């Protein structure tokens, strides 16, 4: 079936032809099959048709055409006009897109509502010859693309019982801007510690988070690696490859987690809070520190002199 057949009067190679092809591809993402999409586009652009006209124009077998029309009616984006034979027409594209989105939302909502049911049913099933699984705490999972990674971050932040540790450059976390990433972090109920390159230009990524939880990552760590640790038990390690899609590895491998946790603790200890004065005031801090020590020495010395004096008087 060619695009000319899908939309009459639009020839191959024209600007409109490419647009129709793009619309067709997008409609597939809204849950339509290629043939459903073609029937919808054909009806929308050519007006009402009978099933046999559609079958003939689009070169789809008649039986399949009836099935497709039936399914599109169920989706709510075409309707039939009673008559002999019945004729079919489509609803406008803006309404159709809204209907398709709502259908997807409803589907997700149905899936969510069935989660408890499937879990309770699952728990009633007996284990069949299952042996102890040694790999229980040594699992690895490769996550590709922003959404699966976000889902994992949400899962980790929601189920944390002790702490969430995050290390990474702002550049990495900027990829999550305009997502719920910061919201997940805001809702963390346990101790949250973030080590990041906190530049004036990029710190908007962590906007809304308590700055008391954020320490400044030394510039030398910039771009090298980023990870999120949950409760010393799970880690999500980001893989930086500018030429490919955003990737991360999740694992609960104890040795892997402990290594990254030790690294985090080491860098955390040596770093300063973003609210504290930076390195440019180190000399000032050292001076202040030394001054306090001298003042302490003076106080002890005065005390000792005073008490010696009292003792000597007492002897007299």
């Amino acid at each position, binding site marked *: 079936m060619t695009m000319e057949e899908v939309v009459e009067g639009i020839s191959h190679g024209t600007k409109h032809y490419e647009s129709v092809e793009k619309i067709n591809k997008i409609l597939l993402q809204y849950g339509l099959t290629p043939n459903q999409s073609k029937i919808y586009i054909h009806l929308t652009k050519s007006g009402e048709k009978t099933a046999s006209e559609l079958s003939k124009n689009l070169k789809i077998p008649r039986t399949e055409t009836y099935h497709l029309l039936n399914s599109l009616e169920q989706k709510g984006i075409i309707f039939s006009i009673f008559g002999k034979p019945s004729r079919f027409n489509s609803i406008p594209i803006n309404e159709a897109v809204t209907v398709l989105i709502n259908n997807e939302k409803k589907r997700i909502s149905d899936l969510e509502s069935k989660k408890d049911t499937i879990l309770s049913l699952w728990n009633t099933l007996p284990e069949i010859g299952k042996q102890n699984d040694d790999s229980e705490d040594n699992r690895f999972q490769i996550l590709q693309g922003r959404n699966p990674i976000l889902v994992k971050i949400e899962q980790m932040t929601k189920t944390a019982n002790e702490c969430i540790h995050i290390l990474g450059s702002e550049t990495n976390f900027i990829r999550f801007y305009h997502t719920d990433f910061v919201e997940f972090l805001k809702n963390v109920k346990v101790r949250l510690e973030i080590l990041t390159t906190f530049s004036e230009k990029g710190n908007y990524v962590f906007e809304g988070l308590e700055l*008391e939880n954020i320490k400044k990552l030394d510039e030398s760590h910039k771009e090298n690696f980023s990870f999120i640790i949950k409760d010393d038990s799970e880690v999500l390690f980001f893989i930086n490859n500018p030429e490919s899609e955003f990737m991360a590895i999740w694992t609960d491998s104890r040795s892997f987690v402990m290594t990254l946790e030790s690294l985090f603790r080491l860098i955390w*200890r040596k770093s300063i809070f973003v609210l504290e004065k930076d390195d440019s005031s180190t000399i000032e801090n050292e001076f202040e520190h030394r001054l306090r020590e001298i003042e302490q020495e003076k106080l*002890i010395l005065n*005390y000792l002199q005073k008490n010696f004096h009292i003792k000597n008087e007492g002897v007299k």
Partner: protein
Amino acid sequence: MSDSLSVKKELAVLIIDDNEQITKMISTFLRLNNHKCIIANDGKYGLDTLQKERFDVILLDLAMPELDGYEILEKIKSPDKLSRIIILTASNITKENQKKFKEIGITTILQKPVDIDVLLEKITTISKC
């Protein structure tokens, strides 16, 4: 002499501080009051001594080269030892760290310069725990 010094019991005090002047002076006035004092001018020696012997009070500085006070605290697992520590430092302590110290059982955090009467009072209080 201050009343707070009139602690009848002889106390064993460990001072971990890289400032030799201060450790000498504190140990002098404690010894003058018949208390036993051990000085550690570096974190590692301080931690070793702390692990091997029992002290009534431990005065711990935070900013020290190599093994600092924070690292020492991380390595001490005994709640009894932690509860006998007085942090005596010239460094600024963030609210977050103050909270953490309290969580591990350290109740006395003093920033230098500290009035000697106050220091002695705190030593007395901790030693009675």
